[in-house]
């Protein structure tokens, strides 16, 4: 299906709709260990499927351009920007969101470190930092400060919680997060 359902030409074309001939079979997604069938059109960015259809709050819209990281999820263990991936491209790879990483009762070590360092102001961006840091520490368990700063350089925090965020990531690394 075209990613441009409105061609702007007068009259336009007849749209696809669920149930009509030509509508692809429902997509299946595994999110936080649970299988879901989703209704969204295949070109819908994963972010909107997670938020609007699966009612998840962790990944958030920040720019829709892959510039800020607020929408980050893990796809098969890799941190990716869910605003820029069509849901049809997910395939069989398991999706993990901030909710799936840990809970208030059983936080992931990176989440625990962010809680202990009180590493946020508003917290709107914090999904991206935690998900990116968790994937980074998985591959690089003992990073130096410069490595951490580089690994997190693709993320935006408008409030300016950077110093506490860096402390939290160092703490998580020291505790084997």
């Amino acid at each position: 299906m075209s990613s441009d359902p409105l061609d702007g030409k007068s009259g336009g074309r007849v749209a696809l709709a669920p149930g009509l001939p030509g509508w692809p079979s429902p997509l299946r997604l595994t999110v936080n260990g649970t299988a879901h069938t989703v209704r969204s059109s295949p070109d819908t960015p994963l972010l909107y499927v997670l938020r609007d259809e699966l009612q998840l709050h962790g990944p958030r819209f920040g720019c829709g351009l892959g510039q800020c990281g607020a929408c980050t999820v893990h796809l098969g263990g890799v941190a990716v920007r869910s605003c820029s991936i069509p849901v049809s491209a997910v395939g069989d790879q398991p999706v993990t969101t901030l909710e799936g990483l840990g809970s208030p009762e059983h936080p992931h070590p990176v989440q625990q470190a962010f809680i202990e360092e009180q590493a946020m102001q508003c917290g709107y961006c914090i999904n991206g930092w935690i998900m990116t840091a968790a994937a980074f520490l998985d591959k690089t368990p003992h990073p130096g400060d410069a490595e951490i700063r580089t690994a997190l350089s693709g993320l935006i925090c408008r409030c300016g919680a950077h110093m506490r965020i860096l402390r939290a990531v160092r703490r998580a690394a020291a505790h084997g997060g």
Partner: protein
Amino acid sequence: MTAVSAHTLSRRHFLKTSGAVVVSFAMPPVILGSQPGTAGAEEAVPDPAQLDSWLAIGEDGSVTVFTGMLELGMGVATAYGQIVAEELDVPVRSVSIVMGDTARTPDQAGIGGSRAISTGARPLRHAAAEARRVLLDLASTRLGAPADRLTIRDGVVHRTDDTTKTASFGELIGGRHFDVTLRTSGEGSTLDVAGSAQPKSPDQYTIVGQPVPRIDIPDKATGRFTYIVDVRVPDMLHGRVIRPAPPGARLLAAEGARVLPGSVKVVRKGNFLGVVADTEWDAIQAARNLKVTWSASEVSWPAMADLYRTMRTMPARLRRVMADVGDVDAALAQAARTIEARYEWPFLSHAMMGPSCAVADVRDGGATIWSGTQHPHQLRQGLAELLNLPPADVHIIWVEGSGSYGRSGSDDAAADAALLSQAVGRPVRVQWMRADETGWDPKGPPVVTAVRAGLDDQGNVVAWDYVARNFTGRGVPPQPARGGNFLAAHLIGLAADSIDEPPNLQEAYTFPNKRRAGEVVPWPQEASPLRTGYLRAPSQPGTTFGAESFVDELAAALRADPVEFRLRYLQDPRAVAVIQAAAQKAGWASRPSPRKGVSPSGLATGRGIAYAPRGDTRLATIAEVEVNQATGQVHISRLVIAHDCGLIVNPDGLRGTIEANLIQSTSWALKEEVKFDRSGVTSVDWATYPILRTPDAPDAIDIVLINHPDLPPSGAGEPAAVATAPAIANAIFDATGARLRTAPFTPARVKDALERRA
């Protein structure tokens, strides 16, 4: 003694939790469904003269407090919990806080001006103290002992002479009214209440002053928190807005959206244009692809390169002299030597992390609007006027949004959602796209500052003439209380208010002759992406950049150490204390700037200081920098701040807020500037409006908190943002001898200053 009748608590706004947000220590904040249809005429704003409007105790002894103030991500809700728990002698975790709901919380004129703790918390503190007195009276009757033989621990009243005799708060009044009338004073942001109880004195505090962890962080770190962007109500559609391109253009035609899946509707009202669809993705694509014809632009503004010259040469609409000591003109005329300089501060974007968002349900003659506004009660008035509804039929429910720093786009998004919902007759959620946010949010105004000083032949400053200019604030007054003051209203063509507010100039030097004046120059504001509004410490980062850079220029001209020079002209002991504390923490070595033996190439290091008062808060910031003289890159090795905001409620929360203030203002100083040309604002995302990222963050930040339990809290949400840019500019000068008088200090500007240095 006030008579207490503890009848069954049937109060609508306590029991009816529908749609409300509760911030609680004990449970995650929740959105409990929607309020289908609308608020209805019953929704009066709670009466601040009733204790029940501020505080309720459940049958289980839990405490719920109601405040018109809001959490912006600085930990205010946690501090409120501490203040209430302190007065009531309950555990902090038993306090829940309801914020910013026009049907459930008193009108405190919203949040801003660093007043969440300073004035915003006073009514809660006084209401809690009065509630404690009432509870002791009830316990006195029940336990058969006078109040002075009762003590309270963790929400349970004990007889001091017989500890088996107890009554819990829940037993005493749980689920029932206090029915106590309070005296009120002030209104809006100064609203306060008093009963007959005396609140505790600071020397009795055991909870206030402690570093209590923030109540919201565990849920935020695990994706359980509900932000405004997470609000979903039954039957809800998704909307997006399409702004004029170029700005000021008239909408001629919009067509080509009728065939989208989810039956996209196009909503048009004057030059306001939006789309509504079943799904968010359909709405986004419809907004992107709708074929829209706009007229040529009718807005004109100077070329970006001419901005500051235009601001300086325009006739002022208004001039306000804020201080006039001695005879400045005569002292300047008689001075042995005069020095002057001009400084320039750019347009800044709020650039909220989460683009502005609202959900509106406007139908059946009423409206319910969920918004991340900073002024729910004022938004209610403004939207009522915009929607042509009685204010009593408009219910605003604040839900925490992405961190906001003043008059952001949140109110404008609420108006967008309200108009779209009104047009389609169903609830509509609107979130702006990134370009709507960074491109079209109200901008922090540019500030031009000119300072002139006269020196006598002994090198004393005998005159100080300090003038700053910014723009008239037409259409974006600090509060959204009028229907014409939303971006959508401008596009429809409603009349906007005009606010002439001169820049905020604060300094406290004891020069014998001095003048401080703020001037306002006109600027096209309506329906403009360069309309201006409050942004964190409105205009003071610009004026303090001028004043504190100039003080440094004076010290350098006199070959004086910048710390010693400032202390020579400051008498306020709290000002002296923050400067000395910062200098001590930084290990400041006394010497004039620039440092001796500055090499004209290679890496240069230096340090600079700036001092600022903001309201009753005092702070001094020291920056240590490394300047790469080949590239013009400035790296911040360390920031040190000493900060005195009176009594400290939560030192850890305060440190977090100060640190974030320093980072955000470092970002302003080094990176941020709204760019524009005749086609509109061209800095519309994080690539074109870059802000500080981790590699640019300082190596270290050291914070010295000066606690003054003898003084009321005076605010910390803004002050630490005002002195960073001059501290960095002064450090660059110390390192290199090059003076930066225009922010931001980009590599190109630094290189230019290095080439121009004497």
